[in-house]
């Protein structure tokens, strides 16, 4: 799994929008990051558990406001999300 979870989030930020509710798909993300859909799905599940992305039953996905705010923190080494 050479693509990092953060790279998936960053790519999703360019391909979707929280305010406009613009979405993309797992397949599109996989193509953009040149990896397989299974890798992307695994990362998206983790990001969804952090409330950083929203996934829909039909396969669409988008970044959340929380995800956009996280990227704006401009920190990349250690990030732990405590959403409880």
């Amino acid at each position, binding site marked *: 799994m050479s693509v990092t979870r953060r790279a998936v989030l960053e790519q999703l930020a360019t391909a979707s929008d929280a305010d406009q509710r613009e979405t993309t798909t797992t397949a599109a993300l996989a193509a953009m990051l040149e990896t397989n859909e299974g890798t992307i799905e695994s990362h998206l599940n983790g990001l969804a558990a952090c409330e950083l992305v929203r996934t829909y039953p039909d396969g669409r996905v988008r970044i959340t406001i929380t995800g956009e705010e996280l990227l704006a923190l401009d920190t990349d080494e250690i*990030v*732990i999300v405590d959403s409880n």
Partner: protein
Amino acid sequence: MSDRSTTQSDDESAEVQYDPNSGRYDIYECTVSDCDNVVLVVGNDDPPMSCHDEPMERVTELDMSVKPPDVRQVLLQAFGLPKAGLDICLCVIGEGPLSANEVAEQLGYDRSTVTRYLNKLVELGLLRRSELNREGGGVVKVYHSVDLERMRRETLIGFYVWAGEAASLIEDANLTKQDYLEANPDQELPDVFWENFNEK
């Protein structure tokens, strides 16, 4: 002898091979005979260390056996960072963002333990806590690295403060021992001396 015992034996016999030419750090001492000033320099020595208006002399030999430091022990001793705190940082570096639940599962800790140590890391200044807006309302807590340059500076200075305190402690202990032996020339140093030193 098993592999395990061999490893333990190696660990026990390991000691720092002080290399004054390594450039990692230098130790200097004052050349004036009644001055006991000894300094540690990490990084470059520009301008050169001086004492009594004279350049200090680089220490080139180490007579005592010094054990190599273990980063976990150093962080625990100097900053009170327990192993669990370091485990959490190491677990997340390069893998995040992770949820606190994922960290707990990966390390085999209770969820509450992870939260407790995350807050400890914030207290120590090694992590920062931010609150992000949740789409459905409310906030989501995020624990994240502080600026790496700042962390590097703060941990180095913090460690120097600890090292200075440790050096003072050793010096005080040596002076107290010297005073005791001078006042009690016919007596051995009591076995409890070191244990009781802090209370003296």
